[in-house]
């Protein structure tokens, strides 16, 4: 299991090498991995559909309670199968779609890493590792949206997606930690076993809001929905995989996952059904009045995410069942539609439905299968989408509250989505042929394979829903918190209200499509505040953020060495003075007993050196005086038997003087450039700093530090445990090796910085 999750990341590293070896076949070859993983996850089918939950455990950071524990139940198995199954076709598709693109290996690399992260997300049973995979999906999504990074639009969309999802991720992190503390465990299976007890905790509501912020941003719920249509700047395989079939469903997954704990909470149910209902309506209507194929599909994805959220919010067993059926149906038809839309773009050079028409004769296969997928989207029998839509209507009718409102929203949604489906499947293919940038032609097999198979599966499941009912039952069991009845999925449920509503929606949707040219503009105008208002808010916030950053950079990072030093010293002075004043901490006792003669001499020498360094007009003299200070310090180390420190001090002093000498004679002659007032200020700051540091040293000498036992421990264990008699060295390379590692990294960074700065000036001067 661990290997199944990690294999995506491992293969991702190898892609650049593989792509030069395999050339054009790279897509087909990489598709083998998700295909094999799909087979691997199928082996869990029997166990999981029997009602078992498979737990696999790997310790990661046991001391912090962070483990790589994986859990396979109905819900995670369904997601894992979707991720790997659709992933297989996506890789084949991407290999052809971007054939010859100079960065194709990067795209495939990110896609593989994403697949690994997504699998980790849905299989994790530890909250912390779940969160880490969650963030990894946001991050890979950022890289993928920004794939065409030469375009400003793509960069902007990538940043927007990252900002919204990672911002929500921050809230989610707080929420998950809170959840772990409230429930007393970071393991999902232990938390789920507690049932709804967690709702009694006083901080339950805060936790819920934080978790939902994470889930809503990820799953593009209104008012955070705007990042998803913009994310269509990514190449089509990415949109098909991340931004419709898998990643955006992570939020839905999380809500479904936590449903057994949240069930019955009014706040949870109300928030989810209201936000979900509004999101789905906005999505459906925006889909119906967009013109870009991919944007139409993106808005219809928002519709689907809203529907799923609403169904989880309604929370009746029937609604949960509807959610799972809808999830499966949507992944199938939306993956197919995106790939088909990309194929259209590939074959004709445009994605605007207004510029497409009459392609039926040129692309017969695409026409057929896009129609099949679109029928499923519109919810027309005998496709799987129809079953999902019927169940949705039934659930809205059976909602414990707000039933009327939810039914109304559902019907509007269905109308919009029928029109959107017609826009995608009918408009480009029928009517008069319109001139396109490229001569239309049927696409190669590797482009068509994915959507052909997904569309056929959609039809197959509509005719024989029994194929997946065991899995759906297991999934509903997982989110319902108890054994669920076997879902009764059928195309014909008798003549009832849902069927009537379906018919009504179909009729109105058909009319909407018929009058589309006339209705589109007024509808879009009416929706503008709801659809684009949040985006404008986001842009205003970003502008404010940038302005704030510029302001504080001007203040803090102004490029003057004097200001930096002054800022650091003044901050330290203020903090130290505050600590002394508020704690009334200053204690000292001075005794000059036992002070040896040569210590006095060294101290006097240091004072003279410091005064000279400050007063002289000679740079070399100043450097030499500071050198004297350093060597005198080394002498003091020697007196107090610290040879290692003394040697280091001597060597560092030597090298510092050498470096200073190297730059010294490049500097212009000595001059007074600052006014007397500024010099007085500097003297005052320096004096205050010196006084405070002296006070601190005196006080520290008097107080006993926490961790008194550490010194004794180090002395005792240095030879016994670490085989070294030089305690200083043992501390550096063994006891506190991690600190040393950090320090040498900082050293290396500093050297790179010096090198870069000097080389930059050197090269610009040349």
């Amino acid at each position, binding site marked *: 299991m661990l290997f199944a999750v990690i294999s995506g990341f491992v293969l991702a590293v190898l892609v650049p090498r593989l792509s030069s070896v395999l050339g054009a076949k790279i897509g087909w070859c990489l598709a083998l991995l998700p295909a094999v993983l799909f087979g691997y996850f199928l082996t869990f089918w029997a166990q999981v559909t029997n009602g078992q939950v498979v737990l696999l455990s790997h310790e990661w950071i046991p*001391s912090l309670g962070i483990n790589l524990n994986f859990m396979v139940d109905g819900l995670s198995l369904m997601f894992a199968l979707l991720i790997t199954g659709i992933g297989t076709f996506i890789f084949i598709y991407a290999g052809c779609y971007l054939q010859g693109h100079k960065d194709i290996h990067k795209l495939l690399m990110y896609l593989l890493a994403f697949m690994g992260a997504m699998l980790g997300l849905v299989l994790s049973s530890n909250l912390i590792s779940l969160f880490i995979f969650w963030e990894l999906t946001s991050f890979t999504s950022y890289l993928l949206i920004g794939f065409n990074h030469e375009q400003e639009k793509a960069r902007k969309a990538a940043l927007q997606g990252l900002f919204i999802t990672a911002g929500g991720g921050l809230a989610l992190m707080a929420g998950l930690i809170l959840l772990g503390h409230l429930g007393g465990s970071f393991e999902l299976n232990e938390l789920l076993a507690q049932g709804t007890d967690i709702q009694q905790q006083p901080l339950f509501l805060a936790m819920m809001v934080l978790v939902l912020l994470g889930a809503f941003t990820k799953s593009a719920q209104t008012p955070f929905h705007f990042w998803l249509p913009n994310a269509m700047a990514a190449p089509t395989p990415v949109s098909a995989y991340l931004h419709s079939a898998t990643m955006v469903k992570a939020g839905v997954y999380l809500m479904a996952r936590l449903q057994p704990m949240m069930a019955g909470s009014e706040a949870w149910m109300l928030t989810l059904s209201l936000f979900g209902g509004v999101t789905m309506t906005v999505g459906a209507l925006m889909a119906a009045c967009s013109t870009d194929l991919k944007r139409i599909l993106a808005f219809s994805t928002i519709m689907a995410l809203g529907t799923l959220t609403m169904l989880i919010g309604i929370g009746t067993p029937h609604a949960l069942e509807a959610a799972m059926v809808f999830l499966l149906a949507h992944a199938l038809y939306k993956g197919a539609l995106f790939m088909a839309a990309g194929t259209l773009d590939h074959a004709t050079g445009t994605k605007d439905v207004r510029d497409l028409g009459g392609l039926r004769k040129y692309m017969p296969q695409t026409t057929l299968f896009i129609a099949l997928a679109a029928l499923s989207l519109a919810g027309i029998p005998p496709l799987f989408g129809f079953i999902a839509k019927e169940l949705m209507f039934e659930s809205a009718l059976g909602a414990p509250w707000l039933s009327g409102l939810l039914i109304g929203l559902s019907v509007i949604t269905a109308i919009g989505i029928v029109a959107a489906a017609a826009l995608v499947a009918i408009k480009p293919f029928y009517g008069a042929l319109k001139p396109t940038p490229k001569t239309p032609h049927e696409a190669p097999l590797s482009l068509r394979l994915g959507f052909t198979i997904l569309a056929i599966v959609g039809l197959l499941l509509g005719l024989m829903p029994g194929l997946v009912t065991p899995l759906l039952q297991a999934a509903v069991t997982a989110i319902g918190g108890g054994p669920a009845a076997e879902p009764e999925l059928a195309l014909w449920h008798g003549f009832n209200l849902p069927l009537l509503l379906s018919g009504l929606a179909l009729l109105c949707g058909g009319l909407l499509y018929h009058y589309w040219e006339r209705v589109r503009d007024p509808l879009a105008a009416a929706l503008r505040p709801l659809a684009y208002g949040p985006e404008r808010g986001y842009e205003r916030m970003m502008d404010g953020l940038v302005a704030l950053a510029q302001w504080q950079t001007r203040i803090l990072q102004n490029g003057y060495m004097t200001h930096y030093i002054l800022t650091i010293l003044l901050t330290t002075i203020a903090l130290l003075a505050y600590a002394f004043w508020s704690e009334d901490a200053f204690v000292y006792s001075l005794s000059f007993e036992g002070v040896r003669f040569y210590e006095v001499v060294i101290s006097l020498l240091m004072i003279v050196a410091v005064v000279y360094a400050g007063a002289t007009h000679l740079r070399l003299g100043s450097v030499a005086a500071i050198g004297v200070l350093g060597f005198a310090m080394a002498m003091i180390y020697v007196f107090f038997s610290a*040879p*290692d420190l003394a*040697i*280091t001090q001597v*060597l*560092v002093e*030597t*090298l510092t003087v*050498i*470096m200073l000498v*190297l*730059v010294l004679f*490049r500097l212009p002659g000595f001059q007074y450039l600052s006014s007397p007032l500024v010099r007085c200020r500097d003297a005052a700051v320096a004096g205050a700093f010196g006084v405070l540091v002296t006070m601190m040293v005196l006080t520290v000498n008097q107080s006993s530090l926490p961790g008194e036992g550490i010194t004794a421990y180090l002395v005792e264990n240095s030879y016994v445990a*670490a*085989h*070294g*008699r*030089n305690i*200083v*060295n*043992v501390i*550096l*390379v*063994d006891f506190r*090796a*991690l600190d*040393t*590692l950090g320090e*040498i*990294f900082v*050293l*290396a960074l*500093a*050297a*790179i910085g*010096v*090198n870069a700065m*000097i*080389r930059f*000036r*050197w090269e610009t001067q040349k």
Partner: protein
Amino acid sequence: MRSDNSIILQTATRLLVPLLLLFSVFLLLRGHNEPGGGFIAGLVASSAFALHLFAFDASSTRKLLKVESQLLMGAGLLLALLSGMVGVVFRGQPFLTSQWGTFYVPGIGELAVSTPLLFDIGVYLVVIGVVSTILLSLDKVEE
């Protein structure tokens, strides 16, 4: 630098540089039990290169280093990291847990090897790399 200046310095440097480098290795290896260690040894070795830079010029110091100074930093960091990974990979212990072992080397006898020593060698390389990178780039300003 001013390569035409001091024959005395150049001659002394030719003798001193090998001695200083040898001394730095000595300090590095004894560091665990006596004063010394990677950081100090690295500084000694760096001062040898600094001396060389003063006596000759940057290009001959680069030649003496044999490799790019940045490469030394990278190699040192990598070595320090890998020494920490030994315990993780072979024993499943936390990162940077020390591992100790002795090998029999024909002709020399028992040889004690440990990951802290590898770590210290990493520190040594990083320090040499850092100081010589800074010195060489500062020297470049003059050209």
